[in-house]
């Protein structure tokens, strides 16, 4: 998912020119804030008379913990730009963007209070995450915490929020344990590995139903860190209920120099479908080795990561053709959901690159949190908690391929899901679910020697 960061000076100049114009137009609409119902907000907010109301200085501060340095710094800074864009929607009058709170400046129920994000760098380290969470709560007086990308950092930072008794919204960590430990203050908008795995099996079922693919047995190949292990566990757990048989699982070291033995093991299992969970270099090596050894399952449906990296398609060329992978987001959404395309234009103007998975999920999560603060009519933690519990956003309220946002008993969003993209003509095209599909899935995989 990594892309090169390239500054687009033309885009910057356009933003520079546009910003004053937008500010001027926002000034014009300011008088009508109280009446301006956000275009896509599903419920008109009615505040109880005893609601605590706006903070004294008219500023609502939200603490954001992200990996702004270290190995995940690129992703962290891309998400930071998306969060700033989300806050811009709220603070300025952006009636043209049909998302919650975009119309009208500030948070309407809090007398048009402005939102301020206080960023902290986790360096991708769990202990730093907890230190920074504590600092944001104690010194910066934030009303809620947001973050933190790395699952381990999210865990320790949310521990600090749980101790202090303020809401923590997570939009980008996929470890299922996070919502399953029953924290009172922890909410997650993003689907987790379990949900994503369901999506993979849904896709396989639909291939069997619609294209008579006859896929019955599955081999799992996974790398040996947090991501791969969690993924394999979720896939194994769900296979039985789907009438699929796990023919075997093969674990490999991350960054392995050879995967010959692993691919030979897969060859012996001779399953219909291979579900690999690996990072980019391992994904490339897997496909190259499979071609050399002549291992070809009927279908490969990967668990995101390396198989969803454009660098993977570039490296293996035609051998990538037909490989499908679970993903959380795809530029195809810009065609299906016009609002996503609109947000992408603004994001590209600010950063010079397209929205992708993590920034898109971050932007969505931030809007969910701010929408809840607005409906709470107060910055009181209990009121925000209740408003988050009551969250009920529909399909049109997000830029994601989700049916909406509502939280289950574990405070996990139950309407989030992944999509399946397939490499067709050297491009990732969305093939599942049908509402977001732009092309039909192709099955089975073409033999290695009959590729262009």
């Amino acid at each position, binding site marked *: 998912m990594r892309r090169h960061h390239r500054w687009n000076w033309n885009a910057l100049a356009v933003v520079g020119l546009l910003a004053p114009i937008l500010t001027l137009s926002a000034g014009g609409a300011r008088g009508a804030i109280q009446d301006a119902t956000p275009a896509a907000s599903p419920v008109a907010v009615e505040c109880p008379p005893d609601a605590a109301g706006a903070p004294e200085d008219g500023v609502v501060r939200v603490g954001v913990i992200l990996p*702004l340095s270290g190995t995940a*710094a690129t992703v962290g800074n891309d998400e930071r730009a998306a969060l700033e864009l989300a806050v811009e929607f709220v603070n300025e009058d952006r009636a043209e963007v049909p998302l919650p709170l975009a119309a009208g400046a500030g948070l309407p129920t809090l007398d048009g209070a402005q939102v301020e994000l206080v960023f902290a760098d986790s360096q991708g380290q*769990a*202990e730093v995450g907890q*230190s920074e969470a504590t600092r944001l709560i*104690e010194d910066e007086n934030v009303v809620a915490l947001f973050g933190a990308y790395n699952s381990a950092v999210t*865990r*320790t930072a949310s521990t600090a929020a749980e101790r202090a008794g303020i809401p923590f919204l997570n939009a980008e960590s996929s470890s299922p344990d996070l919502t399953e430990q029953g924290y009172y203050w922890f909410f997650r908008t993003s689907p987790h590995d379990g949900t994503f795995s369901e999506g993979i099996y849904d896709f396989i079922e639909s291939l069997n139903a619609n294209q008579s693919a006859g896929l019955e047995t599955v081999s799992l190949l996974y790398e*040996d860190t*947090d991501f791969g292990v969690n993924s394999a566990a979720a896939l194994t757990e769900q296979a039985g209920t789907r009438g699929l048989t796990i023919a075997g699982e093969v674990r490999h070291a991350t960054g392995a120099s050879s995967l010959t033995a692993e691919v030979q093991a897969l060859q012996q299992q001779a399953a219909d479908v291979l579900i690999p969970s690996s990072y980019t270099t391992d994904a490339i090596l897997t496909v190259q080795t499979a071609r050399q050894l002549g291992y070809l399952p009927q279908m490969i449906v990967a668990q995101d990561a390396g198989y969803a990296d454009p660098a993977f398609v570039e490296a293996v060329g035609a051998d990538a053709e037909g490989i499908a992978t679970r993903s959380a987001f795809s530029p195809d959404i810009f065609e299906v959901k016009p609002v996503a395309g609109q947000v992408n234009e603004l994001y590209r103007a600010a950063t010079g690159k397209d929205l992708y998975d993590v920034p898109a999920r971050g932007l969505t999560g931030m809007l969910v949190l701010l929408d809840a603060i607005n409906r709470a009519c107060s910055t009181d933690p209990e009121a925000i908690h209740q408003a988050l519990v009551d969250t009920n956003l529909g399909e049109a309220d997000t830029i994601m391929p989700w049916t909406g946002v509502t939280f289950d008993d574990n405070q996990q969003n139950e309407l989030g899901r992944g999509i399946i993209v397939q490499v067709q003509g050297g491009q990732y095209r969305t093939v599942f679910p049908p509402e977001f599909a732009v092309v039909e899935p192709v099955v089975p995989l073409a033999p290695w020697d009959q590729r262009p």
Partner: protein
Amino acid sequence: MTGFARSRPGGWLPVAATLSALVVFPLVVDDGSWLNTAVLVLLYAGLAQAWNILGGFAGQISLGNAAFFGIGAYTSTVLLDRWNVSPWLGMPIGAVIAAGFAVAVFFPFFRLGGHYFAIATIALAEILLILFTNWAFVRGARGMTIPFVRGPDRRPTDSWAFLQFNESRVPYYYVVLGLAVLAVAIAIAVERSKLGYYLRAIKNDQQAARSLGVPVLRYKLIAVAISAAVSAVFGTFYAQYLLFIDPETTMRLELSVLIALVAILGGVGTVVGPLLGALVLIPLSEVTRSQLAGSGNTLDLVLYGGLIMLIAVFQPNGLVAVGDRVRRRRRAVRPAGDGAERGDAPLVGAPGAGD
């Protein structure tokens, strides 16, 4: 504590003043992030002190001390998770396991000379990291969460029995202060004992020490066992402080390097050195990050790294040598001074030379 008092001119007074300042500290500063910084300072002071027993007194540079720290953290957490054993009990058990592990592994390591020894210690911590990452019994890469002790209203609450404090972090501070004092006391005891003299003799010239009848291997193993046990105790504390551990958090190479760095920049082979190093280095890292890192331009890391380089260039003997230099100058004014050589020999244990 008598050794500490004797080893520094000025006797009991500075020690008593420092200790009472440390005891009063949380009452004066109720601010969350300063208290957090203070806890980290004491934690790293203790870990650096433990490193110092092997790396400073005996001159065996280890870049794998995070392994012992991790063993301590995992032992108490596994005992708590599986059998509901209090971390207070898990703490000494972890210390014993870490010490036993250290003796078993370092027995062959001590046959390696100089740089090869340091490389072997790096490999040790990395191997342990990979093993724990793949070990399902300790939940592998997913890490282990220590559940909150919750009160009747479901809110996280304090529990001395299970070493967990959620309403205020002040008790954590006093626990780690107690452990740091313990670590310093152990370091002083080692320094003053026959063991300390043997270790310094080993550091100065292993061959000479052996020819004088010092059982080199045995004393090095004793040093590493003590170092490992003390590190493990802090590992348990850290697990309880974070309430989450994974192999990356407790055993990664940067942690081993940071522990050594604190001791080396503070002043190798002295009792005060690791304390000074932690007092300067940890707040430096916390303050630069909290003030500058939010912008995402990593200026904080540049500044932090730059300051470490400055200390290394201008104070190669460690921060402890600053004090020695001042004292030397003061002494030079008075007639007669026997400490002129102190501070010039960073790899020789400076305290104790005053006797």
